[in-house]
């Protein structure tokens, strides 16, 4: 038994950017695809819209996940807002060997982190604005971020996303969600 059997993902977002929902949806996507176990762990305090928030998802293909503790050495970090990368608390979670998936229009210099990382960028905000995929406090970033993550990892595909989104949000909202997911799936690139 080793930690290697569990894939760990950290989400950094701001209150209202739907990162916590993303952590839950990711657990569902992987489970739907046939992973043996999954857990979504939101870190809940007294956050308000715009405050930095954190969530984790742990996935396993072959064993039960028994831990409830925070992820400290994630395999992947999803950053919903580039301004979070200036916060030391967020920077501290970036370790050697991690893959970053960042909501950003343009590539950027990652040498400031001083770590060996792999970077993917996805213009999730741009996609949401283009498709008018918004809620009261801004773009709904979870679907494009998860579309990009699916493409990068191959843990699930658009078909699985369609199934889970339909189950979670109903048939009425399916089309727009899938449009956004597909845009992200096709446009994520190495940064």
């Amino acid at each position, binding site marked *: *038994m080793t930690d290697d059997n569990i894939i760990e993902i950290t989400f950094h977002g701001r209150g209202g950017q739907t990162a916590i929902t993303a952590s*839950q949806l990711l*657990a*569902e996507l992987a*489970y739907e695809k046939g992973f043996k*176990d*999954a*857990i*979504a*762990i*939101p870190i*809940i305090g007294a956050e308000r819209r715009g405050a930095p928030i954190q969530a984790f998802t742990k996935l396993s293909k072959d064993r039960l*996940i*028994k*831990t*409830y*503790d*925070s992820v400290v050495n994630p395999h992947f970090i999803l950053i919903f807002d580039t301004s979070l990368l200036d916060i030391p608390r967020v920077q501290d979670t970036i370790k050697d060997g991690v893959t970053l998936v960042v909501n950003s229009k343009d590539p950027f210099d990652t040498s400031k982190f001083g770590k060996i990382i792999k970077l993917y960028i996805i213009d999730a905000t741009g996609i949401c604005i283009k498709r008018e995929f918004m809620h009261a406090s801004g773009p709904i970033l979870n679907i494009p971020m998860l579309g990009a993550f699916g493409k990068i990892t191959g843990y699930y595909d658009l078909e699985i996303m369609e199934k889970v989104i339909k189950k979670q949000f109903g048939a009425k909202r399916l089309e727009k969600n899938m449009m956004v997911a597909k845009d992200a799936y096709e446009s994520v690139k190495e940064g």
Partner: protein
Amino acid sequence: MVETPKDFIQKEENVIIKGNVAAAYAAKSARVQVISAYPITPQTTVVEKLSEFADNGEMPGTQYIKVESEHSVLASIIGASKAGTRTFTATSGQGLFYMHEMLHWAAGARLPIVMAIASRGPAPPWNIWADFTDVLSQRDTGWMSAFCSSHQEIYDEILMSYKVCEDHNILLPKFVAYGGFILSHTSKPVIIEDQDKVDNFLPPLLDEEGWPHIWMDPKRPMMFGNLIMPSGFYQEFRLKIHDAHIRAKEKIIKAAQEFKQLFGRGYGNGLIQEYKMDDAEVGMIIYGDLALQMEDAVDYVREEGYKVGMVKLRHFRPFPTEDIIGVAKKVKLLGVVDRATAFGSQTGGPVSCEVKAALHGTKDTANILPIINGLGGREVTLEQQKNQLRKLVKFNETGEVPKDTIHGTLWDCLLEVK
């Protein structure tokens, strides 16, 4: 009983849900007839989900009562239970404390109420995160209490609890507790069972039939809870509550067996659940969410070559004295982990005190190392739990009490005070 419309009859499904939602599904599966609710973090989403079920028409015939405080929640539930209905509610921390007077009333009236507790630390300082002091400090109210360590266990334990509580030879209320946020707000796969199968395990209550000792009927007026003189049966009533607790142990064991047969999920003997204790040299007694994580810690420390094991305490009331003695005869040293406080008591932790008391007078039982950790939701990592086990191993090998104990208890991972 009101028939459920065809579209809403629960079929077996495997869903990823929060612990609180699992509790709400359990109440729905149990066909509870009266829910009374007042919101409090981290329990709120239990009663929110139930109000959604009720509003959608998924729980036809269920009365959902909104009241102005937790005290009124339990007062209204007591009234409903007296009328012979299956009742449910949920609360946390301060809300449970506000119910305290009514808790005694529910147990004294022998009402089989089941209440989910998403445990949180008592204030001050204000706290909303996992700490079992809320439910453990209600020890002497006469309520039974169970602890869950997984999302599935919340669903399963609520169903098993109704079975035990409503047994005509028991008739006691029960808490089903789980760590606030750690289980209440994380999401994991849970199997929601087929309604027919649940009905088979826990038959729906018939209309207009009460409990054997209380049957509210306008045609047959009765008086409830009136004054009893010191020369009356007060002491005998109290003895009967204690006696019912002791007798409930075999019912809990039986319910767990039946549950396993029907649904395929087992929880030890219902009272405790051992993990790798058979060849263990030291062991850990632990309850709630940390018990599941401790299983991983046991596996890791075993890989290092140490024979460690653990016991999940599933019930605190009734206390499984005989099982704990049995476990304490298997090993030389037992750690007892509390995520709760009992100030001024022998160990400072409610469960470690209880374990020590249970072993009194029995020879050749394990030494006890009380441990307190994770108060007010402070994170307890897998690494920390591995270290706790390693400390036990070292203590057992060298006989030296760990250096960081205070008044005989290991207060694990204290912050440095400068």
